[in-house]
């Protein structure tokens, strides 16, 4: 299955600033997914990123707050903009492995704390 490298692994940021999270995959993939895991909660899909097109956002998430780039088939970034303490979460990227038959592979996550 694919191997995902996610950076940074953790960060502490001031409110009102922005953080860009990088996700690098060791193979070409059509879709990349960005999830949020709030403290003590499960994973919630933020958006799906296809190469060469605008990302598709889930209800409750907007592009101005979470802009996503997908410049090629192995890389994507998620920016958390104008951060507030409520944005403190773990952010994870994910890709489908083998048509989904082998599940979806996740990165190790970015633990974000906003102070």
């Amino acid at each position: 299955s694919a191997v995902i490298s996610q950076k940074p692994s953790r960060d502490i940021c001031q409110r009102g600033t922005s953080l860009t999270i990088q996700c690098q995959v060791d193979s070409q993939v059509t879709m990349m997914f960005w999830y949020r895991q709030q403290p003590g909660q499960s994973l919630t899909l933020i958006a799906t990123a296809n190469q060469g097109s605008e990302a598709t956002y889930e209800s409750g998430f907007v592009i101005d707050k979470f802009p996503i780039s997908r410049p090629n088939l192995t890389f994507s970034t998620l920016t958390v903009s104008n951060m507030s303490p409520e944005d403190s979460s773990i952010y994870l990227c994910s890709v489908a492995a083998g048509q989904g038959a082998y599940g979806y592979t996740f990165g190790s996550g970015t633990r974000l704390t906003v102070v």
Partner: protein
Amino acid sequence: EDQVTQSPEALRLQEGESSSLNCSYTVSGLRGLFWYRQDPGKGPEFLFTLYSAGEEKEKERLKATLTKKESFLHITAPKPEDSATYLCAVRSREGAQKLVFGQGTRLTINP
């Protein structure tokens, strides 16, 4: 709307004490039910995919089963290293590639 409910929220077992975790789901056209293991500070690690009622998959001490309404993750003779949060997720026909996750079961195996 697709929904996944896991129970119990937390489970503490003694080493060797077998048990089962439950995942109840409501989905419009199941396209896969997934089990993941998540260790603290790490991303979810894929365990199993189940597609149709009656299907079973096994890996070491873990066995996953599926009915039309729920899935069970059976843990046989667990060891302390099996301690983790176990997540269940579904992919539906309506949701395309989206996974909807349950809240997870935090499993602790005491030596």
